[in-house]
C-alpha cells in the first residue's frame, strides 16, 4: 500500500477537492442538492481515503481519534442549542422564525446552523466508526 505511487498521487490530487466539495455541499444545500448529512459523509470519505492510502498512523496525525467524540457531541448540542435559543426568544423549540427580525431570514439562519450541526456530527461519527475498525485491524 505504501509503495503504490499511482494510487498515492491520484489520492493526493483528489483529497483536497473532496474536502472542498464537502464544504460546498454543506453550505450550498439550501439551493441545490445537498445538506448536512451528505456533506458529513463526503468529508469523512475524504479523510478515509487519506487513511486508506497513507496508513493509519498518518491519518491519526491529521485527525486524532481522541478529539472526534467531543466534536460529534458539539454538533448535536449546536442543533439543540438553536432550538433553545428560539425558545429563549419566546417561540417554540426549533422555531427559526424568531432568530432574526424577518421570519424568512430567521429560517435561513436556523437551517444553516442546524445543517452545520448535522454535518459536524455525521462527519465525526463516520470517522470515529472507521477509526474504531482500523484500530482493531492493526
Amino acid at each position: 500500500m505504501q509503495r503504490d505511487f499511482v494510487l498515492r498521487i491520484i489520492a493526493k490530487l483528489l483529497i483536497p477537492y473532496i474536502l472542498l466539495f464537502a464544504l460546498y455541499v454543506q453550505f450550498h444545500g439550501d439551493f441545490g442538492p445537498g445538506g448536512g448529512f451528505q456533506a458529513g459523509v463526503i468529508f469523512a470519505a475524504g479523510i478515509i481515503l487519506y487513511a486508506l492510502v497513507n496508513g493509519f498512523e498518518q491519518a491519526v496525525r491529521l485527525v486524532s481519534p481522541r478529539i472526534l467524540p467531543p466534536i460529534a457531541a458539539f454538533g448535536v448540542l449546536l442543533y439543540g442549542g438553536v432550538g433553545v435559543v428560539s425558545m429563549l426568544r419566546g417561540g417554540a423549540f426549533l422555531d427559526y422564525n424568531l432568530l432574526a427580525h424577518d421570519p424568512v431570514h430567521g429560517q435561513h439562519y436556523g437551517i444553516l446552523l442546524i445543517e452545520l450541526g448535522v454535518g459536524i456530527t455525521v462527519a465525526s461519527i463516520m470517522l470515529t466508526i472507521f477509526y474504531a475498525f482500523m484500530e482493531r485491524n492493526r
Partner: protein
Amino acid sequence: MELLGQYNYWVVFFLMMTGFYVVIARGNLVAKIVGLNIFQTSVFLLYISMGKVSGGTAPIVADPGSLYSNPLPHVLILTAIVVGVATTALGLALVVRIKEAYGTVEEDEIYAQDDPPHGSAPALAQGSETATADSAGEARR
C-alpha cells in the same frame, strides 16, 4: 407502460425477499448483515418509487408551474440512509466482538459452543485452536 405500471413495486418486493432470504438462509453473520442492507435498500426504493410523479422533476424550485415529485419521502429516506450506515456499523462491531469471543462468525458453530451436544463442552473449548478459547469459555457463562 400500463402493463409495467407496477414494475417498481415488483422489483422492490423481489429485492426485499432476496435480502430476507440471505438473512434467514445464510449462516455467516457478515452475509446476514449484507442481507439486512439489501432489505433496507429495497424499503428505500419503495418509498422513493411512491414519491415519484410522472412528468415531475426534482423538488428544487425552478420555473413557476413546474410539476415536482413529492419531497417528503426523500426527506425520510435521506436521514434513514445515514442512520442505516450507523446501525450497520454497530452490527458489524457486534460481529467483530462475537468473532473475538467465539472464534467464529458462523451461526451453527456459535450455537454449538453455547449448547454443546451431550456434555462435550470442555473438550470443545480446549480442543479449539483459536487463541480466544478462554474468552469463549468466559462468554458461555
